[in-house]
């Protein structure tokens, strides 16, 4: 299967890419890892007239710690995040997330920035980056601007980015000591999209009181959903099983799933409560310093 014909540009600098995008307008698409865009183009669900490949621009895949945050260049591949020992120890939730995306071949090419800008409702990065309070930097003809993940994700496959902007960086604040996180995804078969997924990042005081929490839900709405009501139910409280179950009920209410080939809306509403309780369990154990592999939970 071939995509419809298009013209291909491979700018060497970010300025060049932004200038091209400004000139080409809505008919252009940015190509990062291509693991969503190219299948869509082959299926003729998307037929951009121009493709601007940003892979030849240097420095866009850097991952570095800066000013209390872990900064991910937009072209950081899922595999690099999955394999990084530093990320596994500082932000295990990101290791969880990277390692359940697609399969090895997809993770070798797919990028964090591309996946986020694609804004797939069932994508794995959006719920995790919501839970982590991540910020994204984008670069356009008027210069740079910074958005929260919330502000970025507008609707299914729709973001706040204009046609001439490139998402360049994702900044994840480093968690306080006594923090833990987990991302759990339920899939029908290896490498599939999530039926539902839950990301939890929690900071504990004295190992039992919830100092702060972020909860992101995936595949149960048009965008990933930040479960703010459930978060405020838990924030500042001593965590008990009953309280977590109350929060799970709230999660179920905040989810907004639709019935599709992967399950009915009712089923997914139930599934997020189960995933939430499991993710809380792993996140809290990690906050206590335990090493937990999510694939075995």
């Amino acid at each position, binding site marked *: *299967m*071939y*995509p*419809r*014909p*298009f*013209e*291909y540009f*491979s700018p060497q600098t970010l300025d060049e890419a932004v200038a091209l995008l400004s000139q080409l307008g809505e008919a252009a698409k940015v*190509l990062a890892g*291509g*693991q969503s865009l*190219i*299948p869509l*183009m*082959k*299926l003729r669900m998307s037929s951009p*007239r121009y*493709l601007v*490949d940003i*892979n030849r621009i240097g420095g866009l895949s850097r991952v570095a710690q800066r000013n209390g945050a872990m900064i991910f260049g937009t072209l950081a591949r899922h*595999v690099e995040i999955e394999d990084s020992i530093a990320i596994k120890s500082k932000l295990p939730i990101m290791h969880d997330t990277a390692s359940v995306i*697609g*399969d*090895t*071949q*997809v993770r*070798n*090419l797919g990028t964090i920035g591309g996946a986020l800008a694609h804004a797939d409702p069932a994508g794995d990065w959006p719920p995790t980056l919501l839970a982590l309070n991540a910020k994204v930097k984008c670069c356009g003809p008027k210069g740079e601007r910074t958005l929260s993940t919330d502000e970025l994700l507008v609707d299914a496959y729709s973001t706040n980015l204009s046609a001439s902007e490139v998402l360049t960086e994702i900044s994840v604040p480093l968690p306080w000591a006594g923090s833990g996180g987990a991302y759990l995804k339920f899939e029908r078969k*290896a*490498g599939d999209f999530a039926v539902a997924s839950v990301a939890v990042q929690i900071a504990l005081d004295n190992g039992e009181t919830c100092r702060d929490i972020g909860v992101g839900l995936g595949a149960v709405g048009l965008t990933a959903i930040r479960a703010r009501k459930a978060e405020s139910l838990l924030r500042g409280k001593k965590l008990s099983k009953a309280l977590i179950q109350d929060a799970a009920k709230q999660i179920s209410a905040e989810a907004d799933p639709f019935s599709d080939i992967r399950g009915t809306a009712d089923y997914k509403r139930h599934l997020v409560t189960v995933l939430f309780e499991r993710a809380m369990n792993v996140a809290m154990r990690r906050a206590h310093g335990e090493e937990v592999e999510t694939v075995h939970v």
Partner: protein
Amino acid sequence: MERRWKPFMSEEKQVILKKKVVIKINGKDCEREVEPRMLLVDFLRDELGLTGTHIGCDTSNCGACTVLLDGRSIKSCTFLAVAADGRQVKTVEGLAEDGKLHPIQEAFWEHHGLQCGYCTSGMLMSALHLLSHNPSPTDYQVRRGIAGNLCRCTGYQFIVDSVKDAAKRMKATR
């Protein structure tokens, strides 16, 4: 015959601009002019006649088209040939050297790691990627390593056996 789709033409020239690419395939520079929409798998098969790389699903699911790009496994049906310009690709044809099978191929032969053979070239390349990054994988790691490759014949057990034996063979030759 009437075209089913209306091609987008370059406004100035009314032709689809081809791009020159030079891709190092199995150690040899290959230079061609290709349409930007040409996928790497079609470049390998149609331009170069390297038909060892198969097209299975053509939708990024089955992994039959797996090749190594700069040492990492990718699905060549989901990668543009123009994007591979200046890079290195290894296909199944690059495994055997001087008529001698690669240890991974020998192990697949020995353990009947295939039946119809359609998925095999992709399996071999995924195994090569796995073993070059993890020389002694556990059963679980092997299964995870080939999760992007579908086989409808074997039930995977013999493939897992093959990859584990290949790991031993590769260590012995190192």
